[in-house]
């Protein structure tokens, strides 16, 4: 384990530091026919349960 750590250290020292690649952009939108009627005094979230 110590040998492996030493080797890794040598590799790191020999390579110029690079900035990490940017994380992927996330952008999602879904759509359906609206039929919500809930209010803060009552809600039924699952459409199937209401049928």
């Amino acid at each position, binding site marked *: 384990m110590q040998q492996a750590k030493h080797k890794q250290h040598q590799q790191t020292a020999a390579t110029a530091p690079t*900035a990490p690649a*940017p*994380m*992927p*952009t*996330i*952008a*999602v*939108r*879904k*759509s*359906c*026919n*609206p*039929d*919500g*009627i*809930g*209010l*803060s*005094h*009552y*809600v*039924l*979230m*699952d*459409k*199937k*349960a*209401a*049928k």
Partner: protein
Amino acid sequence: MTAAALSRADIGPAFIPVDIGHDVYAAVTDPSTAFWALVDKTRIQEELAGGSLLDAYRKKVGDFARELHALRFELKPSGVYLNPTERCNLNCTYCYLPGEQRSNGSHMPHETLNASLGKLRDYFRSVMPEGRKPRAIFHGAEPLMNKEAVFSAIDAFGDDFVFGLQTNGTLLDDAALEFLTSRNVSIGLSLDGPFAGVTDATRKTWGGKSVHDKVLAAMEKLKGYGSWSVITTCTTENLPYLTQMVELFHAHEVPTCMLNTVRCTLPGARGVKPADGDMAKAFFAAMDRTHELYRETGRKLMVANFANILIGILAPTARRLMCDISPCGGGRAFFALAADGGLYPCSEFIGLPRFNGGNLLAEGGVEAALASAAFQTVTTRDVDTFSPCGDCAIRHFCGSPCPAEAHEMNGGMEKTGAFCEFYKEQVNYAMRLIADGKANDYLWDGWDEDTETIFNHVLN
């Protein structure tokens, strides 16, 4: 089109950056269409200046604008909240209905309830697509104070409506439970504390007796039923116990709960209103605990008011609650019928006579109410048109609820609701979950089965 709008059209859509408090991601939004994207902070300047994300969005901006406009301005009502009585056997600190009505009010006569449902059925048939049933929710005051009329109506109109019942749970005996569950009526309860000392601070009988154990007994009996929920109204009295609250709900296998901010429409509620920052801290701790419980047991406890914020971001048209959209659903997606036959945009307005849109059984009925000045005051409340909402990046994820409390507490329809900063923090929290790939953990399985993905931009 105004000069400003023409100018915007020339330039095209632009993004607003939002710091969501995430280590890696920031959000960019176009609030006018409820569009959002999560972008690596190191790349945010180039995305704001233009790039493949903006190019992809430009191709869709018209579709998104039309979709949001239809959701905000073109819905027809598909649900009604029915108050079959003015009376309640409890005297909760924050109730939005006047105490005089709840203590000495009247029941809606059985014949009037049936005549009302007949007229409502005919109205909904005229505006809803064939094959879709409207929802009719018996609501409070306490609907089971007029149980015989309610149950008779459910049997008489079972083919015409999908029924629900919001109750304080104290009158939900075995016979009532058998009646309701055998007819697949959705049942909502209310409980404010993980133990009696906390619940009793805001919810008790007129004589000051605790109802905590009765609600727990009803919850125990509802275990395994497919369609029930429990509402907790968050106040200064129970805020330190929200995490224990969700632990209790999860242990009782509650499928769905709401941890609602107290509605500050009437003065009594304002005395137990938590500060936005305190509300956010306790709420997110409770949300984090629901996630831990899900990871430990594989069983979700849906916190519906938060799930609705998430859905409003991921799929604006799939939202189930219609409070967090502007104009809100009151008088558009649903309306309320008071025990005296009066029509109101929402139950929240029943104690405020100026919002009475007329009597259901009078000439004109629902159509006249929808067109009334009383309803229009609510249905034209548009966050695009007043400050500070008009410049807010998240205004169509929030909707600045609630118009009743904006009007009564803050002085007008063109005012914010009671918990502006808390809503901003909720949206940030939701965005962080999306960034971390955890959003589905907070939504019920299959929530998006009826949806179509209309935008899915991944830029590596």
